[in-house]
Each structure stands twice: as structure tokens, then as C-alpha cells.
């Protein structure tokens, strides 16, 4: 796989806002059919990195390549047209609209001609339901139902199915499993696997190591705007990854500290660090 051209590649990308450097020399590659898990604590620069990929920010230095060719995005729309879709939590779905209408918001299918074009409800519902069902969410069978009535996982799946249907090749998922229950998160992880099977390049941002390990082929840990670790599946254990995400501070050390403190302080835990 490494000799193939990656769909998207970052080469030494820096991003500064005025005097503040947020990203330092980020280099990443994502091939087709591969899931890159971007891990990192709050404030590590994950959001800035995905906004740079999505065309919200332009990199200060370095370059972004798609299929080996340098690209630059002036607006988010440019990135979308190049096939980079960002799905935020529930992004792109409207709670009080029907599934069909929500799916096609902005690109409504019509029938008729000229000024008498009318919204083609039947076609929109059919396509939307089929697109979601193809991702394995068979419980969605009525395109007239309101999106707000779906479970969190179904709604997230609808958002992902929508991005894929409209031609995304690179799928950036911004914490898609946050705030979801175990079952619902499993739903979304299945969808990520399905997207991978279809040959999309997926960039999966998450806090949850378990979710990352379930789908990831390749992991990058971001600490203070730099890539602190870059490894492939199976090269590191769950504990090691959790430690890295906690900022390099070993979780085992932390636990040992707490236990040691409790032994010498009659079983009381230490005051939380401030």
C-alpha cells in the first residue's frame, strides 16, 4: 500500500494565527480504503488541522497534496468540490425536516421544467433511504420521517451516508461517536468500516481509544500542535495509546502515584491537581 499515491497527503504543514503557532510541521498520508485515527487531547490542534484540510484555513507553510498533486483551497466549498467532506456531530442533518428533504438540502431533486419545477419528494425519499440502508442502517425505511426522531447513531449515519452519496473521497469525521451510547457508537463504527470498504480515505477524530482501535489502520497522536506519535495498527497497545493521548504522561505512573499517596495517607486520595 505504501508505494501507491495517497489520496491526501500533508507535507510539513504549519499553521499560525498571528504570533501563535498552532500546528508544527504536520506530515500525514491517507490512502484509499484506509482509516487514519487522529488522536489528541483538547487543545492539541485537532480542530485546526481538520479546518485546514477542509479549506477553512489556509496553511501558513507546507503543502497539501491530493492524488500527488498540490492543491490549495480558498474556501470550504473548494475542498468540498475536491471531494473532502467534513462531518461534524450531526452536521448536515436537520431535526425538523424529513429524511428525504434533509438528505437533499441544497441539491433538491426536481421534476417538471422551467419555472414549474417541483421538489420530487418520492425520488428524494427513495434515494435517501437507499443510501442509508446501503450502509447497513435498515431501520430507516420511510423517507418522510423527521430526522429528529432518529437515534443519535442513525442521525450520524445519515450525515455520513449523505457525504458519501455526494461524492466524498476523503471523509473527515469530527468526533462522530462522542455523546453516543455503546450501541449507537457501534452503529457509527460499522459505517466507518463500510466507508473504508468502499475505498474512501477516512480521517477519524476521537477521544476514545477503543473506538479508534476498532476501525483504525493508522494512528497519529497530536500533542501541542505536533505529531507526537505516528504508528500503524498493532504496533502499540491500548494503554500506550491512552498514555500518549494524555500528553505523554504515563497512565500507569499516574495510577502508581495515586496508590502511593493513598498508602501513606490512610487511604485518602490526593487532592486533584489544579
Amino acid at each position: 500500500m505504501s508505494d501507491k499515491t495517497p489520496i491526501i497527503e500533508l507535507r510539513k504543514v504549519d499553521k499560525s494565527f498571528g504570533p501563535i503557532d498552532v500546528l508544527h510541521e504536520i506530515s500525514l498520508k491517507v490512502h484509499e480504503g484506509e482509516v487514519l485515527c487522529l488522536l489528541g487531547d483538547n487543545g492539541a490542534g485537532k480542530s485546526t488541522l481538520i479546518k485546514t484540510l477542509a479549506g477553512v484555513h489556509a496553511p501558513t507553510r507546507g503543502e497539501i497534496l491530493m492524488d500527488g498533486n498540490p492543491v490549495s483551497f480558498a474556501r470550504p466549498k473548494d475542498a468540498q468540490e475536491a471531494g473532502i467532506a467534513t462531518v461534524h456531530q450531526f452536521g448536515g442533518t436537520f431535526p425538523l425536516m424529513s429524511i428525504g428533504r434533509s438528505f437533499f438540502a441544497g441539491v433538491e431533486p426536481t421534476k417538471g421544467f422551467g419555472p414549474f419545477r417541483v421538489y420530487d419528494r418520492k425520488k428524494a425519499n427513495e434515494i435517501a433511504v437507499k443510501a442509508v440502508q446501503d450502509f447497513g442502517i435498515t431501520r430507516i425505511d420511510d423517507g418522510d420521517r423527521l430526522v429528529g426522531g432518529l437515534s443519535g447513531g442513525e442521525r450520524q449515519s445519515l450525515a455520513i451516508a449523505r457525504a458519501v452519496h455526494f461524492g466524498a473521497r476523503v471523509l473527515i469525521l469530527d468526533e462522530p461517536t462522542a455523546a453516543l451510547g455503546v450501541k449507537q457508537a457501534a452503529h457509527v463504527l460499522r459505517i466507518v468500516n463500510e466507508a473504508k470498504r468502499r475505498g474512501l480515505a477516512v480521517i477519524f477524530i476521537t477521544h476514545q481509544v477503543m473506538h479508534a482501535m476498532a476501525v483504525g489502520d493508522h494512528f497519529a497522536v497530536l500533542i501541542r500542535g505536533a505529531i507526537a506519535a505516528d504508528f500503524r495498527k498493532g504496533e502499540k497497545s491500548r494503554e500506550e495509546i491512552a498514555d500518549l493521548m494524555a500528553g505523554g504522561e504515563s497512565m500507569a505512573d499516574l495510577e502508581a502515584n495515586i496508590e502511593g499517596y493513598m498508602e501513606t495517607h490512610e487511604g485518602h486520595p490526593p487532592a486533584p491537581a489544579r
Partner: protein
Amino acid sequence: MTDATRNNSGAGPGFAGLLGIFRRTEVGAFAGLLIIFVFFSYFGWDRNFLSPLGAASWLNFASTVGIIAIPIGFLMIAGELDISVGAMVPASKIVLAIAVGFFGLNIWIGILLTILIAGGIGWVNGMLVTRTNVPSLIVTLATLFAVGGLTLFFSILITDTTQLGLTDADTDAASEFIFGTYHTFRLGDENGLTLWQGVQSSVFIWLAIVAACYYFLHVSPWGNWVFALGGDKESARNAGIPINQLKIGLFMLTAVAASIVGISETVLSNSASTTTQFTMIFNTIIAVVVGGVLLTGGFGNVLGIAFGTTTLAIVQQGINYTTFDRNLSNLIIGVMLLIAVLMNETFRKMATNWSSAKK
């Protein structure tokens, strides 16, 4: 959202049927209209509430509110509000009266001018809201007073009075017919069955606007953009919907609708006054909310708004045909508004928590 609540939702056919009704707020608005209509028909029977002239009194009232309420409803669905209509109506009246009555322009040129100026003010509203991100309630509160002030200022400056008039010579038959006359329709001769009597032109304009706006919001593809805009602004932008242009367009539509009411009232009564119509602001908002549009945006129906407007008009005008004290109409409206808001909120909760476990 858990499996447990989903199973509860599908508990029985009765509950699902109830939800089916709640899925459409305009059905609730229609039920409200029916209750109010039957109530006033019963208590106003002896006093001709249902006679053609009686019906005309509440239909005429409904039309002036209704013409403005529909674009206001669009704005509320899109998550915005426009209270500057209270000043737009008198401003349009004064512009028309000055152009036609004072400067002697042709009535059609005056009408065109009035609509253009209104569109311009709507554009300013839209630009201010989209560029500054100040809540539209405040922006249009500012333009309400600004336009009201300008109307008074120019009226005094140009004509030295705040009450202007048109003469019969200023208007022609076509403009009277379309904008401001009383229409009567009988089958056969004088003794034939009267279908309608004393109905203002604005009622027909209202019906045309209901039809056109229903097409726009529910049939054409663009209606989807309005719902998407009110549902989630950021997602709508990401979906490629030109949200700022759409918002500006809706503000312009509202201002033009207000100007049409102004034109209609001026041509009908041949007079114009600078007085700001504060009650118009409240009436349009009440009509929209009673019509089932959610205060939080993202949901509503044109027919619902028309039902809400008619309900409001029946209570406002129909009370005169009953033995109840006229002052009680505001009490009824207050209670009605409260019930409508609670029902809309219930609808929103049900709609966003309902998964179809049935089938």
C-alpha cells in the same frame, strides 16, 4: 432516544394516530379554527355572524393581517423576525399618497415606486441582519422607528400634513378593482343567492399570496432552503445554500407584502396616515404562532398560517356579532396564543423523539 422510549412511542395504534396528527401542526391550527368558528357561529347566529356581510368583516380583517403574516411566517421558519412591518404599512401609504395625490403621478407608477421603496427597506433589513449578526428583533425594531420617523419627516417636509388623501380621479378602474374596492357576487339578479358581499380586494390578493407561497414553500425546491436555514444555519451553509441571499430575499418579501397592504388600504379609503401600526406587529406574530410555526424556527406551514390568521380575525371581529363584551376578545386571543405555543412545543418534542417502531 433509547430503545425503551422508542418502544413506548409505538405503544398503540391510538397513540401513533395521535402522533400522525401532531406531525402536521397545520392540522392543529385547523382544529383551533374550527372550534373558534363553531363557537362564534353559535353565539353570533342571531346577529348575522355568518351572513355575507358578517363574514366579510372578519375576512377583510384577516386579509390585511394575512398578506403580511405569510412572509413573516417564512422569516420565523428561517429563524428570524421582522417587526418593522408596523412602520412599512404607513410608509407605503404615505409614499403612494405623496406620489399620486400630491405630485399627480399615474397610480401605477405610484404603486411601482411604493413597492420598489419597500423592497429597498427590506434589503436594508436583510443586509443589516446578515452582516452584523445582531438579532433581527433588534435590527427591525430599529428600522421600525427609523422608517416611522422618516415617514413623518418627509410627510411634513413635502406636504406639511400627516394626513394625505387621494381623489377618485387619481385611481383608475383597474387599480381600484385589483387593490381597493368592495366586491360583491350574486347568482342571478338582485334577489339571487349572495355568494359574497362587501369583500375587499385584499381578500383576493391574500388568497393569491397563500397559493403562491404554498407553492414556494412546500412544492418548489426552494422551500427546502428556508426550512434548512431555520433548522441549522451552519449545516445549511455547508450544504451550499446561499443563506445570506435567501435571508435578504425573505426580508424584502416581507417589506413588499407590507407595502401591498398599504397600497390596498390607501386605494380603498383614498386616504393615508403616518400613524405607525403597532397592532399589526402583534397581529402578524400571533397569526403565525397560532398557525403552528415554531418559535425556534425550522418548521411551519403556509396553510397553517392562513388558518391562524382567520382564527385571529374571527375572534377580533366576530365578537361584535355576539352578546359578549368586546373587550373579552383580547383575553381569548391571549389564551389562544398560550395554548398554541404549548401545543407547538409539544409537537416539537414529540417530533424529535419519535422513532417509528410501529409498522
